[in-house]
């Protein structure tokens, strides 16, 4: 017998319609307040549904407030005239993507929390089945409740952000931007055919650049060297022997000078900078001291520019800066290197380095450069100061306003950006870099190309050269008030390139991709098109509508995907299998959401670096960036296919969800007829955990966690968050994780130290949290009738359960990983730290009222979710990194390691003794909360 009359009888009177409306309203209200799977949090928490939903809403509104603050900060930055329009544009893309990805994450998590409430379930049918409620009314109420919950979540998340961000995103300036599409691929271009390829590739760009439009005419020169062959292509007023300011490419020369002096034994890379400055310039710092190597890798902690240069970013702040100013600043600032110094690009640092090297050599920087590099390599046109003849070939520079700008004759900053050179000389310099064996200072060249530290992500830095492991290319760029430059070389594929232009990059933003295009052509990779497009932001009103349409579309898409997945699985699998697969699916979706969110990068960055990667087309958050731009009328051609995919994805996910609902409408009655039980299992033997009592409690805890879906999901939430943080740390820029000697996986790397600490911490906290969620309060009577007292054995059992469930697995996995990656001594030391840390956390978790895991009531409405959420985020981000930095400092010496391990061991022992003392039966009471008095009113059909 079916519990519902799926086909309605013919009574459609007004009364019947009124009854249906009342039924719909009652069911809609009931379903809406039960949309979050409250049983996942507590089996007896129905009373707190309103409080809990209120807290979820407040959490989302709180997020919205944070987004509003971000919007203000971003809008203020965009108004800065100095930020090139292209950077503004890519920043706008990054923010659009961030907002869409965050919306998708939040809605995805909402869909997971309401996993069991989105389709009519067994309980709905058992309760409503005997009542004269049509299946159609039930389904409509369910769908309406789900849609309302989705709408409310979107509205709460974007309550403030939905106004602030559309206004902010309408602020950036219109600009010419790279099309970020690819030209037809070619085999690796050689020097011999480079001119013809580039002439063809450059045609659209040259039309746009209109070099002649600049007062007096701008000039562009591109020089390449492949397998010993050279080719130089010129455009506009530039000639092969034209002299350009090469700006910060100068730093690679300074880095090479340092390497030469180090090879000759005149300096050591680890020498303190202080030793090379005039006596009494600066006192020895108390902490770490900046070394020559720190200066050459931008890790000295010195700021980008000194504060005694006059107006920031003006020509005079560079040209009127002399050695006396430099020493004045150093005297005030000092040369202490922060313990957590990270990559910080510093012109000042290279100015100090140049001064230090010149002082040691007893000469000036220009003379040092001439004696050690330009003369041996016969680079006669590479100079700091121009001769009269060279001045005739030196091109006029053009500023951001396309008007002529005076040349930068640098003094103290000469070693950071003062060199002038020609394409011919630069190719000579690059040939030496490609083939050190042909140069008179081979060892120094090799030394200057060794990786020393990290820049961001996996980008490495040698002595000034930045190395990208993804492409295998060393590169550096430069800019002065009127010049732009770029150079790169690839020792393995034996090619090098230099691009020089006598105009400011703000005037010619397309040049940012020209260097990349040349590199891609020489590598034989798909090359970014040089065809520029014009991009303008939407007006505020259109931006507002586009914002909301994109966010709603992204949210609906994500919600429908999760619903569709669940619905399809429910239809395809037998119910018993589905019940088992359901929890697994939830976990998978959860992990995909979290990891995907943290791994995604800005669309601009991805389109430049990974545009040809096939996975790019399958990242939905990029689709909806395209959709936003399409609706706002600012669609970039590179995102056009994504916009189409967004519409298709939205349609497909909606269709699948509708089909799943329709199918479940037809098969709803089967749920009642099928057993809602899992198949039998023969569990493996678990080891003993001490005495019989402790063993019983630990076994009970392990089985409860493994077999209870809601406990598994909540524990997975914590562990997943820990893994997400680990991924974040491992991919984090050095600005966040501090300096490191090697990669994220190298010995004592801060990312790996922080990751293991974070996962351990989150795992213990997660286990403690699920321990406080009861399985079934009514079944607790068995513990109450058992002959044991609260006390040490109870604390010991809880401690062992925590360690077995959270500390031991994380420790074992960390041990496998660290012993594989690191020398065993370092791995063992960190594992000991990790173990003590886990034990201390576990002791804090067993502190307080004595309870048996999974037997105590927990009322979620009473927890301040939004506060604890942000508290833990902050603690994890900053506390963990700080702990990792301290641990790394301690592990670098034997005494430090011993002291730290002794300290932690002592702390762990004190915690254990304290808990044992307070667990004495006379001072402790075993707690089992009473069942709620009105429990009889709840349905409790499960």
């Amino acid at each position: 017998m079916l519990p519902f009359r799926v086909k309605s009888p013919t009574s459609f009177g007004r009364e019947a319609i009124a009854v249906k409306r009342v039924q719909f309203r009652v069911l809609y209200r009931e379903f809406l307040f039960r949309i979050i799977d409250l049983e996942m949090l507590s089996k007896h928490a129905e009373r707190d549904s309103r409080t809990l939903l209120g807290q979820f809403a407040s959490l989302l509104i709180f997020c919205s407030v944070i987004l509003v603050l971000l919007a203000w900060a971003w809008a203020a930055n965009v108004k800065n005239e100095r930020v090139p329009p292209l950077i503004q544009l890519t920043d706008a893309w990054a923010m659009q993507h961030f907002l869409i990805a965050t919306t998708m994450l939040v809605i995805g998590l909402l869909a997971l929390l309401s996993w069991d409430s989105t389709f009519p379930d067994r309980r709905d049918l058992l309760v409503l089945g005997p009542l004269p409620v049509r299946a159609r009314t039930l389904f409509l109420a369910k769908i309406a409740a789900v849609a309302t919950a989705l709408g409310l979540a979107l509205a709460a998340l974007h309550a403030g952000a939905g106004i602030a961000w559309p206004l902010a995103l309408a602020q950036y300036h219109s600009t010419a931007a790279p099309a970020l599409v690819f030209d037809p691929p070619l085999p690796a271009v050689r020097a011999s055919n480079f001119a013809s390829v580039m002439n063809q590739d450059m045609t659209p760009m040259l039309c746009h650049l209109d070099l002649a439009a600049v007062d007096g005419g701008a000039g562009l020169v591109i020089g390449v060297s492949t397998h010993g062959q050279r080719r130089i292509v010129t455009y506009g007023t530039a000639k092969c022997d034209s002299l350009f300011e090469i700006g910060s490419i100068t730093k690679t020369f300074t880095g090479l000078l340092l390497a030469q002096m180090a090879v000759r034994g005149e300096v050591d890379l680890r020498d303190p900078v202080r030793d090379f400055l005039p006596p009494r310039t600066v006192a020895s710092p108390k902490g770490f001291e900046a070394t020559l190597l720190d200066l050459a890798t931008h890790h000295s902690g010195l700021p980008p520019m000194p504060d005694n240069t006059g107006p920031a970013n003006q020509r005079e702040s560079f040209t009127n800066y002399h050695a006396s100013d430099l020493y004045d600043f150093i005297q005030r600032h000092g040369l202490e290197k922060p313990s957590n110094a990270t990559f910080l690009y510093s012109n000042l640092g290279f100015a100090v380095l140049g001064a230090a090297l010149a002082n040691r050599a007893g000469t000036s920087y220009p003379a040092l450069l001439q004696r050690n590099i330009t003369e041996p390599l016969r680079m006669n046109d590479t100079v700091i100061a121009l001769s009269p003849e060279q001045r005739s070939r030196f091109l006029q520079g053009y500023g951001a306003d396309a008007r002529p700008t005076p040349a930068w004759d640098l003094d103290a900053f000469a070693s950071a950006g003062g060199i002038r050179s020609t394409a011919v000389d630069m190719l000579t310099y690059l040939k030496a870099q490609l083939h050190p064996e042909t140069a008179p200072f081979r060892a120094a060249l090799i030394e200057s190309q060794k990786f020393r530290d990290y820049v961001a992500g996996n980008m490495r830095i040698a002595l000034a050269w930045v190395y990208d492991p993804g492409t295998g290319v060393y590169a550096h760029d430069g800019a002065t008030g009127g010049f732009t430059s770029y150079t790169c070389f690839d020792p393995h594929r034996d090619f090098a390139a230099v691009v020089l232009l006598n105009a400011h990059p703000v005037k010619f933003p397309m040049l940012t991709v020209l260097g990349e295009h040349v590199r891609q052509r020489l590598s034989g990779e798909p090359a970014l098109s040089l065809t520029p497009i014009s991009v303008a932001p939407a007006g505020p009103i259109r931006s507002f509508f586009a914002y909301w349409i994109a966010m709603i579309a992204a949210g609906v898409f994500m919600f429908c995907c999760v619903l569709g997945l669940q619905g399809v699985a429910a239809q395809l699998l037998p119910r018993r299998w589905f019940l088992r697969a359901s929890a697994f699916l939830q976990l998978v979706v959860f992990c995909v959401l979290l990891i995907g969110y943290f791994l995604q990068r800005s669309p601009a960055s991805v389109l430049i670096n990974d545009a040809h990667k096939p996975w790019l087309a399958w990242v939905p958050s990029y689709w909806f960036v395209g959709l936003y731009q399409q609706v706002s009328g600012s669609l970039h051609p590179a995102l056009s296919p994504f916009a189409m995919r967004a519409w298709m994805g939205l349609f497909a996910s909606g269709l699948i969800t509708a089909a799943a609902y329709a199918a479940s409408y037809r098969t709803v009655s089967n749920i009642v007829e099928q057993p809602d039980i899992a198949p039998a299992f023969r569990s493996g033997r678990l080891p003993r955990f001490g005495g019989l009592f402790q063993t019983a409690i630990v076994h009970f805890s392990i089985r409860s966690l493994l077999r209870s879906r809601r406990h598994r999901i909540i524990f997975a939430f914590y562990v997943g968050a820990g893994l997400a943080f680990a991924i974040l740390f491992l991919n984090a820029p050095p600005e966040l994780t501090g300096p490191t000697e090697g990669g994220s996986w190298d010995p004592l790397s801060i990312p790996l130290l922080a990751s293991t600490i974070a996962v351990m911490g989150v795992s213990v906290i997660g286990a403690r949290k699920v321990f406080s969620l009861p399985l079934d309060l009514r079944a607790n009577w068995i513990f109450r009738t058992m002959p044991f007292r609260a006390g040490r054995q109870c604390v010991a059992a809880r401690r062992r359960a925590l360690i077995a469930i959270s500390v031991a697995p994380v420790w074992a996995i960390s041990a496998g990983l660290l012993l594989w990656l690191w020398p065993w001594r370092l791995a063992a030391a960190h594992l000991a730290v990790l173990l003590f840390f886990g034990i201390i956390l576990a002791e804090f978790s067993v502190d307080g009222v004595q309870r048996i895991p999974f037997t105590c009531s927990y009322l979620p409405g009473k927890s301040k979710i939004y506060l604890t959420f942000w508290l833990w985020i902050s603690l994890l981000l900053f506390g963990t990194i700080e702990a990792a930095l301290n641990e790394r400092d301690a592990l670098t010496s034997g005494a430090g390691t011993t002291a730290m391990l002794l300290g932690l061991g002592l702390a762990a022992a004190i915690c254990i003794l304290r808990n044992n003392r307070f667990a004495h039966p006379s001072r402790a009471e075993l707690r089992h909360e009473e069942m709620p008095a009105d429990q009889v009113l709840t349905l409790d059909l499960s």
Partner: protein
Amino acid sequence: MNALEVRKLAKRFLGALAVDDVSFSAYPGEVTGYLGPNGSGKSTTMKIIAGLIEPSAGEVLFGGESIRRDLIAHKRRTGYVPEEPHLYAHLSGLEYLTMVAQLRELPPKRTAERIDGLLRLFSLHSDRHAPISAYSKGMRQKVLLIAALLHDPDLLLLDEPFSGLDVSSALILRSLIGELALRGKVVLFSSHELETVERVSSRAVILHRGKVVADDSIQNLRALRSASTLEDVFSRLAIEQDSAAVSREIADLIRA
């Protein structure tokens, strides 16, 4: 002698008196039926005797000593089958019973054999690895019975032990209760099946509105109340309504 003695027991819940000045005794070698209508305080008394809840007044003595003096020792000697078969449904029957044995710190090897034997005798052996969530009400009741018997208790508190059992299991349990009493156990059991109580028990304590309204051997009760069956005795002492009249009223009301 390990007699159970309940003295002036009272229990209040939020001001309402659930058990009011209840006193009775149960002796080894005999089965004491504990009867009363719904809400008369039977299960509350059972829970107090099992040490699950504390009385508001009065005391419970077992073997002449207050159970509150050493509650842990009392729990070691007591087997309790609660009214509702609430069990941890995610465990299998075998796992649940093993956990109970471990919590009671029974010797593992001997207890494993005992659990295995009891599972066979109660026809649960083939389902011992299935999760309790898959058990029927009767199967859960059997798990409760095994858990209560595992440690060979001196005092057996059976609150509605026949609930959900099939006929064959009910017959076995009926015989078992008698057998255990013969072996010197104190057996206190409550049931709404008065026929069963009459067959199994030698004494009966009848509760009404939290108070003891009768406490005697079943034979004496029948004689005193000039009743042929225990059901007659019960209906005279503990049932206030005229069942026939009430049933007529209900039928009239739903038709109106």
